[in-house]
């Protein structure tokens, strides 16, 4: 990266939180610290919800995912608009009417204190670990590619977030997320424009789409009912619905975003904004990856995108083998590029078939390269596809734009981490600390406690990021973690809303059994992770009325 890139990077990354700190200076009540003020309107809520969900992995790994396997991942978002409608119609009015600070406070009002604490506890474990992954995922890639020290990158990204989140609470999180999301969207649009522009001398956008489609990169919808297929319309619409319903309805990092400001109308419009824009946004990010794939059909890509792993293998003596593979790949690349040019000049099915065969041989060569790396003790440790987009950014984008795109990744890291820490601190105070210390009356005391817990969770997240071994697939690690815990949490809420006769103990034990069942399935079977949401939730909804009827029949209604 050049000097101007570093200037753009640091100016972008630092300016937004500093502006936020200036805007939110002053003392606050607990309500203000956790729910923000009335200046937070639907536009801020909408962008804040979008930024909380997106995170760095969306912008770093997803284009690489499309580069490698096509845009079918889009189907994972098919359940989201439907889930957001349910959240708007059922969850939000209840939360706003009861004026709760956290989602789990509602469980305390509807059931009892132990159920409130169980919901909060499951959330804290899941979100605390996920916050670590959110910091770790971009840090490992940026440090590997840019040569930054891993721990320094983790501490820089995490430390700065801790400072401003602790200082400004929900208001600063929402405010900074609004501007960070604007930078992110602008940066991705610039990257999309550049890749299309760089492609244009070789192939038109229309032809690029056609060829990418023929090479299986553009299958957005697959109605197959084959359970072994990872991304289908059905798994996305059904499994994705439960994941999104749990995430938006019962994950405090999102609930806190749309309850900010305290207006029912703003909360609903902010969420509906997400229901409308999420699928198109993800589509363009994935399409960007598919176009990067097309770009590398005309410009020679590296034999292996994860350059540090490649260089480690050379140091371990794999140089001759890798040189041989690189020569073979050079020849294949030249042949394929000529075939593509011929196809662009005059398309024909025979030419396309020849391109497909050359592409299959290229893929096989890449698999062979990975095996050589593994055999020579240079285990790539993270997915090759995670390095595709950052490599494209650093090698192909003009000076200044590189800094902007690295800022996009850091802004996404900071916005998602800030939302998580804000929610972790709030939940710890409201659902665990305050019920256990009811004699402390001062509002100011709880604000200080919220700040201390936010900082403590920040250190936990940095600890998880520092000690985590590499996760094989960064893009899915967060979703897998969420799916393991979300089902039982969502079950608690669905029983609370729709099964009036069930009381605290029945739903509490039903959730414990459901969580144990999900753990058992997770460790013993290989079913698609999105289904854990439906299984965990279904188990609570079925078991709670049974336990109520058979074991807890005599329990009276109790409120925390």
């Amino acid at each position, binding site marked *: 990266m050049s000097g101007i890139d570093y200037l753009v990077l640091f100016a972008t990354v630092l300016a937004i939180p500093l502006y936020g700190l200036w805007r939110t200076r002053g003392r606050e009540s607990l309500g203000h610290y956790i729910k923000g003020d009335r200046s937070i309107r639907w536009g801020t809520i909408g962008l804040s919800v979008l930024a909380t969900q997106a995170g760095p992995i969306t912008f770093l790994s997803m284009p690489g995912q499309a580069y490698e396997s096509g845009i079918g991942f*889009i189907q994972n978002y*098919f359940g989201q*608009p*439907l889930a*957001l*409608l349910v959240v*708007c*119609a059922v969850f939000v009015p209840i939360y706003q009417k009861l004026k709760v600070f956290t989602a789990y406070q509602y469980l305390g009002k509807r059931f009892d204190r132990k159920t409130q604490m169980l919901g909060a506890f499951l959330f804290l474990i899941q979100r605390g670990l996920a916050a670590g992954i959110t910091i770790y995922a971009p840090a490992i890639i940026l440090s590997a590619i840019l040569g930054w020290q891993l721990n320094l990158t983790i501490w820089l990204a995490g430390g700065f977030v801790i400072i401003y989140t602790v200082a400004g609470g929900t208001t600063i999180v929402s405010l900074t997320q609004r501007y960070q999301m604007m930078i992110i969207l602008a940066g991705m649009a610039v990257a999309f424009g550049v890749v299309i522009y760089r492609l244009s001398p070789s192939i038109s956008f229309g032809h690029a*789409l*056609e060829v*990418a*489609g023929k090479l*299986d990169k*553009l*299958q*957005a*919808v*697959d109605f197959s009912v084959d359970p072994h297929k990872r991304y289908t319309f059905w798994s996305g619409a059904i499994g994705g619905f439960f994941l999104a319903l749990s995430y938006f309805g019962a994950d405090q990092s999102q609930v806190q975003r749309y309850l900010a400001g305290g207006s029912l109308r703003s909360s*609903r419009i902010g969420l*509906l904004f997400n*229901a*409308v824009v999420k*699928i*198109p946004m993800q*589509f363009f990010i994935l399409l960007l990856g598919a176009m990067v794939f097309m770009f590398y059909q005309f410009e020679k890509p590296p034999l292996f995108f994860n350059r540090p792993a490649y260089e480690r293998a050379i140091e371990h003596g794999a140089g001759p083998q890798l040189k041989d593979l690189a020569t073979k790949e050079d020849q294949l690349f030249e042949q394929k590029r000529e075939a593509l040019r011929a196809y662009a000049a005059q398309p024909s099915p025979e030419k396309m078939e020849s391109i497909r065969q050359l592409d299959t041989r290229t893929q096989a060569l890449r698999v062979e390269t990975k095996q050589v790396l593994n055999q020579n003790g240079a285990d790539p440790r993270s997915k090759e596809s995670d390095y595709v987009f950052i490599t494209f950014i650093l090698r192909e984008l003009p000076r200044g734009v590189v800094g902007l795109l690295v800022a996009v990744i850091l802004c996404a890291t900071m916005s998602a981490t800030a939302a998580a820490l804000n929610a972790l601190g709030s939940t710890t105070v409201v659902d665990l600390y305050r019920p256990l210390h009811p004699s402390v009356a001062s509002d100011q005391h709880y604000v200080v406690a919220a700040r201390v817990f936010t900082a403590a969770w920040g250190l936990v997240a940095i600890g998880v990021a520092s000690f985590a071994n590499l996760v094989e697939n960064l893009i899915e690690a967060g979703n897998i973690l969420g799916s393991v815990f979300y089902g039982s949490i969502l079950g608690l809420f669905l029983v609370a809303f729709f099964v009036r006769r069930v009381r605290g103990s029945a739903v509490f034990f039903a959730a414990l059994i459901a969580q144990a069942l999900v753990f058992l399935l997770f460790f013993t079977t290989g079913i698609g992770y999105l289904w854990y949401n439906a299984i965990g939730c279904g188990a609570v909804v079925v078991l709670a009325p049974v336990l109520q009827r058979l074991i807890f029949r005599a329990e009276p209604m109790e409120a925390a």
Partner: protein
Amino acid sequence: MSESLDEELREEESRWSRVYGFVLGFFAVEILLLYLFTARFS
């Protein structure tokens, strides 16, 4: 007084139902467009 408040709330929710219907329709169009995109380019 309470009846008129109830009436107002019902009207408000009915307005929101129309908004939800619009969002649902938009979602259906998104899926249709993605399906057509897949059919055209795969």
